[in-house]
């Protein structure tokens, strides 16, 4: 006997096209207030990014991975989190931190090379930056297991790039999540490059979304520069998760408009033509077209939104630069819950010979 025993579809969702036209039939249920809030966050994150790049060039912070172009993926998903939910970012998720209200000076502080920038206030439900690619995806699955086994209604969200899907940890996290049917939402920002490696050299899969199918839960690709598509897909995934129906993988198809980090030069491996194409698809440009055409905001209000954001960022830079250097002895203090005898001895020596 020979027959087809399974067949799968990979859905794609776009609601707001690059010219700002909205498919009203597909539009998610979203309040006007929420729409305006998302816009403010997009602008705030964009201006933060520009400021961070300029601070890096002046040596006022260290190596920095820009987010430009990927704001919608992060903001339109993280905005849907509720009390007690938790997000697990990789390292490019400034938009997630800003959406969940991390004081912006702490982002500058962390990227300025000060551990205290990751001493995340209790009310901010985002875990620390995770530099080793793909490793944190398991933590999100694990926390979702913890929620489920303790009968909590909370969910976790985790963010990673398409490059991360090549690491074993990604597959292990997906497999556990599917097997234990836990409330985790995997958000892959497919920005089409992992440093210099284009997505077509990362995997022979046509989409990242389809990888979910192999682990027994739904995957969807959305236009990652379309806030409505990201919002709607996340909304549905969260509903599913809270209803005990398990995980979802959302592939946000987007583009990294900047270099990989400030130590990278993207000109070395990708052409200008492609970049120009994607600049036209900028999530903010199309959203502004929509907002003005629907008369939700006018040009004056948009300008004032940008002024407000610039002021907010400038104030946070001022606060950042007023932060006193950490007492050098602190480098010993967090190795364990309490100092060991050996560490105390080394600290005494440190005080004599270094400071």
């Amino acid at each position, binding site marked *: 006997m020979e027959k087809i025993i399974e067949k799968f579809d990979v859905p794609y969702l776009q609601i707001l096209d690059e010219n700002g036209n909205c498919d009203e039939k597909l539009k998610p249920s979203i309040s006007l207030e929420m729409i305006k809030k998302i816009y403010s966050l997009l602008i705030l994150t964009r201006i933060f990014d520009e400021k961070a790049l300029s601070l890096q060039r002046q040596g006022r912070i*260290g190596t920095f991975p820009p987010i430009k172009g990927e704001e919608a993926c992060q903001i339109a998903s993280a905005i849907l989190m509720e009390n007690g939910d938790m997000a697990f970012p990789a390292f490019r998720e400034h938009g997630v931190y800003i959406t969940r209200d991390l004081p912006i000076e702490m982002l500058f502080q962390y990227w300025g090379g000060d551990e205290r920038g990751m001493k995340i206030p209790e009310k901010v439900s985002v875990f620390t930056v995770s*530099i080793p690619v793909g490793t944190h995806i398991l933590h999100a699955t694990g926390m979702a297991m913890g929620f489920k086994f303790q009968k909590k209604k909370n969910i976790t969200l985790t963010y990673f790039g398409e490059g991360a899907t090549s690491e*074993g940890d990604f597959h292990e996290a997906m497999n556990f999540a599917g097997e234990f049917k836990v409330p985790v939402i995997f958000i892959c920002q497919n920005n089409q490059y992992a*440093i210099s*490696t284009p997505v077509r050299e990362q995997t022979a899969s046509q989409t990242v979304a389809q990888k979910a199918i192999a682990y027994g839960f739904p995957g969807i690709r959305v236009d990652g520069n379309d806030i409505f598509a990201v919002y709607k897909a996340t909304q549905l995934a969260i509903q599913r998760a809270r209803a005990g129906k398990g995980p979802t993988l959302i592939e946000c198809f987007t583009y990294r408009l900047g270099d990989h980090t400030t*130590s990278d030069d993207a000109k070395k491996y990708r052409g200008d033509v492609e970049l120009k194409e994607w600049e036209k698809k900028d999530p903010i440009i199309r959203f502004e077209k929509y907002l003005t055409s629907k008369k939700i905001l006018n040009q004056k209000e948009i300008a004032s939104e940008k002024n407000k954001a610039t002021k907010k960022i400038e104030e946070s830079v001022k606060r950042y630069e007023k932060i006193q250097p950490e007492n*050098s002895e602190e480098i010993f203090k967090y190795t364990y819950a309490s100092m060991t005898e050996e560490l105390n001895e*080394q600290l005494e020596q440190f005080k004599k010979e270094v*400071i």
Partner: protein
Amino acid sequence: MQLNIIEAINLALKQEMRKDKSVILIGEDIGEDGGVFRVTDGLAKIYGNERVIDSPLSESGIIGTSIGMALTGLKPVAEIQFEGFIFPAIDQLINHASRIRNRSRGRFNCHLVVRCPIGGGIKALEHHSDSPESYFIHTPGLKVVIPSSPYEAKGLLISAIRDPDPVIFFEPKKIYRAIKEEVPEEEYTIPLGKAKIVHEGSDLTMISYGSAIKTCKEIVETASESIELIDLRTLSPLDTDTIIASVKKTGKVVIVHEAQKTLGFGAEIIARINEKAFFSLQAPIERVTGYDIIVPLPKSEQYYHINKSRIINAVKKVMSNAI
């Protein structure tokens, strides 16, 4: 010609690839991009993308498939982008690469080099400033090499590529571009397992490797004491004879390394001296090492690292303790 470490390694790779068709490179962003430190710059253009392989983002994938390719007679030189990212591959290195020869009683071997930047001092992000050499030295079947200059890097890498066993070749990123020196155009080898006396002396033996050699050299060249500086070059296998001969001459020892103190390589050196030259010692051995803490982010990183004054203090202490 005058080359820095990056250029010297690039030249070694280029020449070995020309000489031996079975030498191939694999790693993340090593092709068109030339690697994040540009070590493999231009090599994909010369040798094509089937000999300079841009891999998916997977360290276990890189090392595991390199082992498989080595079984076909290829000689992979794999690049791991930073030392913090060698850990996804540690299973392949410790459970397979190092053991295949023994497991098959010599029927199979693993002709593999793993190149990987190491160490701090470049104001980098977390996981980009560590010195994890001990994990690998502790693994039987792996060789571990850490060069200290461009000349050393070229000669040692060529030996590593020709060695039939797996070699972890750690490249101190702090001195990637900081030292330029004369490097012969033609190919030459520096044998693995042989230390080098960088500076001869009779009062005290200073033992180090990697980027710390530059700092130690600056000290011994101006010190009032006559200090013998040994660059270990290869940490596994270790050239115990050179160490012991020097200790028998000077009777005083300072060991310097960037890695943390506990189970840092200094511990092993002291044990060997204890076994083979204890009665020649005139004073307790001093180690200048990193503290047993996580390497701090850039704002406090300097507090972790060894520095000249700590080394000089150790020398003074050993000299004054000597009986």
